[in-house]
């Protein structure tokens, strides 16, 4: 399946960005083939508002089935749920570790937003 992971840097060694909407990069991984594709999300980094919604909209266009990130606010969660994208939490991991964790079924999925908007 295709998974989008929020990342601080455009590499698999990067830390998972704990912020969903204002993550600098989205790394899309095909968990079957290991193929990766980096999307720049910097345009949302300085959005006045609605960064989580915009990022969710971008992710929906990437046709992924799941997102791996740190925290998701209520607007972003509502947007992701509307297209049935599952959200998995990865705390202090690299992107590569998060992919392994997901493949091994070690990451927990969220069934609601786990932070308020603008939580940082």
């Amino acid at each position, binding site marked *: 399946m295709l998974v989008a992971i929020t990342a601080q840097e455009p590499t698999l060694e990067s830390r998972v960005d704990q912020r969903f909407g204002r993550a600098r990069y989205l790394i899309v991984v095909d968990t079957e083939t290991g193929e990766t594709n980096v999307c720049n999300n910097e345009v949302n980094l300085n*959005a*006045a*508002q*609605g*960064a989580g*919604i*915009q990022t*969710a*909209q971008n992710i*929906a266009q990437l046709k992924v089935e799941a997102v791996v990130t740190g925290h998701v606010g209520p*607007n972003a969660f*509502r*947007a*992701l749920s*509307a*297209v049935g994208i599952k959200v998995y939490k990865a705390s202090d991991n690299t992107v590569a570790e998060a992919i392994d964790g997901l493949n091994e079924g070690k990451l927990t999925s969220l069934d609601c937003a786990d932070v308020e908007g603008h939580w940082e």
Partner: protein
Amino acid sequence: MIVAIASGKGGTGKTTVATNLAQVATDQGFKVSYLDCDVEEPNGHIFLKPEIEKTTPVYVPVPVVDESKCTACGKCTEICQYSAIALLGKTVLTFPNLCHGCGGCMLVCPAGAINEAGREVGVVEQGRANGIQFVHGKLRIGEAMSPPLIRAVKKLADLSEVTIVDAPPGTSCPVIQSVRNADYVVLVTEPTPFGLNDLKLAVDMLRVLKLPFGVVVNRADIGDQAVFNYCENESIEVLLQIPDDRRIAEAYSRGHIIARILPECADFFISLMKRVICANLKSKRC
């Protein structure tokens, strides 16, 4: 004429200047409206003590999508600058608390699938206080969108000779909305590093807006000379200096109009009225 009282820094004395200027101008025979546009925390009523005669809710238009007509073209999401409407797959989601009510999504929808609903952002209250027509806005608690409410407050300015606009602090959208059609802006500051820093921001804003302005220095004998030096170097008129006087602080803390309690304060605001209002109106009453 419309006189807006603004400041970069909060707590410098905007409301003190606005309410006292409104009162002395009324006492000198002008027909005055006072509009409290600091709708996030209006406090002019504490000093003017109006009798509220009318309360009106204010709504912003928010989109409601008719899914049976929506073609999921995404044009609405492209025009929205605030991410208040998003296309997820074939579903359009709206986020009313992010919507600024511009109506752009309704205009661009080729399928006519977007209708307008109202979201209450606050209330406008009108009344009279000591001969002054009084209007203020009260933003709904938790609401972030103040400019539409400020616009509603300003719409209720009658055709008084003098309209005093008490603006919120800062230099952001609510301030721009408050000062934008003023004939003159009074910037209130204090002679401290914070006061100077935020005065510069406010001056930069007013220069972009091309509005004429002058400065009132409150608690003028505290701090340092930097605000005065700045005004001199920038050729900005210092309209009035209000001293740091315990009697003023006490009268303020009791919710009094200081011009009514302390005769020398009445003189301060009469001189301000002459420099700001009379000079513009060329009135014979001054």
